[in-house]
């Protein structure tokens, strides 16, 4: 059974039909990527999974448990954390305060402390700047912070929305290395990316979304070779 199972979800913004029956699944331990052009519905899909948007139709199961029955803020307690698009760090709080807020859904002090240490190990930069106001971090550091903050919830599955957005190429590599590292440590990942080339290199499988519908679904390997994907998303003619 898949860990995360999204079946035929329809999400609307008022009258705008943004997701027209999206189905996808992510298995335990996988990295799955969702690629697509601007406005295709990638962010909408992640926001629907994490409960910030309510689908009008369709179901979302995590380990067999229907997520749509929980109130928005309780989704994280079921084991889903998100690194939002544009990072969404609390820019006026310090790095440490941001990280503490990431653990808001948990209460065991000892484990939170251990988790903080783990995050600092993964991102030594954050430890150096623990007292610094998040808004003054560089783009790359903010991305680390957003990722570290999401990990503080100790999620079973991590949803990442364009983590490489707006970063210099040299930093993008670092971001993808981190994704692989997090995955190796046992966290399943659903990754939304515009940078399809990199995403398909680290992912096991991928979905291609177009105007609210999944149009392709294959292993990352096959998607990389797919001529349509190559011309539309990989810039290869």
């Amino acid at each position, binding site marked *: 059974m898949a860990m995360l199972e999204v079946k035929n979800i329809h999400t609307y913004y008022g009258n705008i039909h943004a997701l027209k029956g999206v189905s996808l699944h992510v298995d335990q331990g996988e990295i799955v990527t969702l690629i697509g052009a601007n406005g295709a519905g990638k962010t909408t899909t992640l926001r629907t999974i994490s409960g910030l948007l309510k689908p009008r139709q369709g179901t979302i199961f995590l380990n067999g448990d229907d997520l749509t029955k929980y109130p928005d*803020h309780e989704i994280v307690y079921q084991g889903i954390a998100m690194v939002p698009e544009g990072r969404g760090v609390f820019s006026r709080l310090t790095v440490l305060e941001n990280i503490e807020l990431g653990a808001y859904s948990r209460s065991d002090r000892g484990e939170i402390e251990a988790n903080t240490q783990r995050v600092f190990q993964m991102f030594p930069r954050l430890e150096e700047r623990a007292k610094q106001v998040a808004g003054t971090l560089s783009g790359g550091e903010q991305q680390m912070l957003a990722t570290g903050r999401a990990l503080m919830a100790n999620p079973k599955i991590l949803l990442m929305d364009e983590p490489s957005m707006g970063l210099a190429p040299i930093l993008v590599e670092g971001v993808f290395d981190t994704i692989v590292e997090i995955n190796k440590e046992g966290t399943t990942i659903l990754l939304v990316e515009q940078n399809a080339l990199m995403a398909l290199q680290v992912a096991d499988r991928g979905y291609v979304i177009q105007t609210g519908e999944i149009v392709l679904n294959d292993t990352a390997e096959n998607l990389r070779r797919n001529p349509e994907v190559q011309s539309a998303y990989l810039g290869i003619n």
Partner: protein
Amino acid sequence: MKIKDGIRAGFIALGILIYLDLIGLPKTFGSSMVVTFAVIVFLFSLFSLRTKPAEAPAPLPSVLVNGLIIGVITGLGFALITFGFASLQAQDVKVTDVFAQISHENIEALTGVDKVALREGQSVVPGLTKLAGYFILAGVLGGVITQFPASKVLHIGDEEKRSSARYWLMLALPFLLFAFFLALRIEGVDIGGSEENSFGLVLIYACIAAALFAVREVKAGVHKIGFSALIVALVLVIPQLTDLKQNAILGAVMIFVIMGIGLNIVVGFAGLLDLGYVAFFAVGAYTYALISSPESYIVVNLPWFEGLNFWAGLPIAVLLGAAAGIMLGIPVLRMRGDYLAIVTLGFGEIIRLLLLNLRDYTGGPGGILEIPSPNLFGLDLGNPKGILYLGMAFAVIVTFFTIRLRDSSLGRAWVALREDEDVAEAMGINLVAIKLMAFASGAAFAALGGTLYAARQVNIFPDNFALDVSINVLSLIIIGGIGSIEGVVLGSIALIGLPEILRSVDEYRIVAFGALLVIMMILRPEGFLPSTRRARELHEADLDSPAEFEG
């Protein structure tokens, strides 16, 4: 700062003084006018000589010279003009035909020479010399003060540059001011204080304000504990030394401190703009009135019910206040910013209109009378001193709760809510619960203030609960510094305490405070004693802007 700038500042100040003179301020202020004008010169000197955030502090001699220049220009200039007016009047010229406000009272207020004496040829020179002396002293003093870290009020200074002498002076300042107050009282020195001893009250305000800055400044550790204990002792003896009227005014200030701390939770911590805060104040006051006054509907109509005393009524009023907070909170949960402000504004008015129109229960415009005073172990607290002590005790309790809330995970959740609702929610923060918590605790504190208010006033009327209360509480937390508890105390003094002593110049005080608010928002948008978080927010431009790329 160059000499040229000092001269310019001096003439601007002189212009302001002449304007105030011509609109007739001296007549209303009477003999305290000279001191008030000197205070204006002092403030002007302080403001124009202060160093800008980015600059190094000006050297002492330069500041002294410029302060002197401001003092001399205003002092001599104003004395000369007044001398001219006085000479004309001595010769029976009708100055009031041209300058309506430059009457004999005006000259008397400024020089101490009355109409008859003036006609008889008494010289105004000694009076004017005193006036000029005050102005010069004030100008120089303003310059000197810029050298103290306390003038950090006016900008965010460089922590490193403060010498230890300044540090100790800053810590000593509240006690010096207090000693000054004592000296005044004991020796009965007259420095132009009016009958109600407004000047003494101003000293008390200054003393408390200095203490607030000092407590913030004092180094952590044993130092801090000892110093805070001294300040607490000082604050505790103040009501023993002040007179009835002063205590009554300080009591009003305390009630607004309690409310300010409550609204601070809603607006400062959770970022929910509530313009109808007076509603909860009213709920507290009327609840206590209804269940305690022998005249109230409930007590009159229930033969077996004799009305509760203060201590029994208080928790009920506070609980009902919290409930009212939740009642308002539920319908506005989905609203943000301006919509929230409008709806809460309406809520405040609705409560007042209900009080006015539910005549049978609330007494309508006639209000509820004979509300019992608090009593503690047989000690009657129904006097200004008792109410003031009670208010101080409540303020301490409320402060304690607020600090606990702020530092709890709830406090952090409020900050997250203010920054980004969606991200906060995705992190597992129950937005509904924490918003309601903010409304409920803010409302409970307002109801506490309201209960104390009802007990203090004895009779309450719907008009006591108009929009201006909400506006005042909001303004005072903005002036003090949103999100900061010391700021609330300072703001209450500035907005509630100071205008009280200016009652005699009622028309002008509103204008003056409007102007103060505007200047304040331009010079120091984060308030006088901001929380560190807020200062960060409003000075984001000063911080390095986040770089999107790095190599």
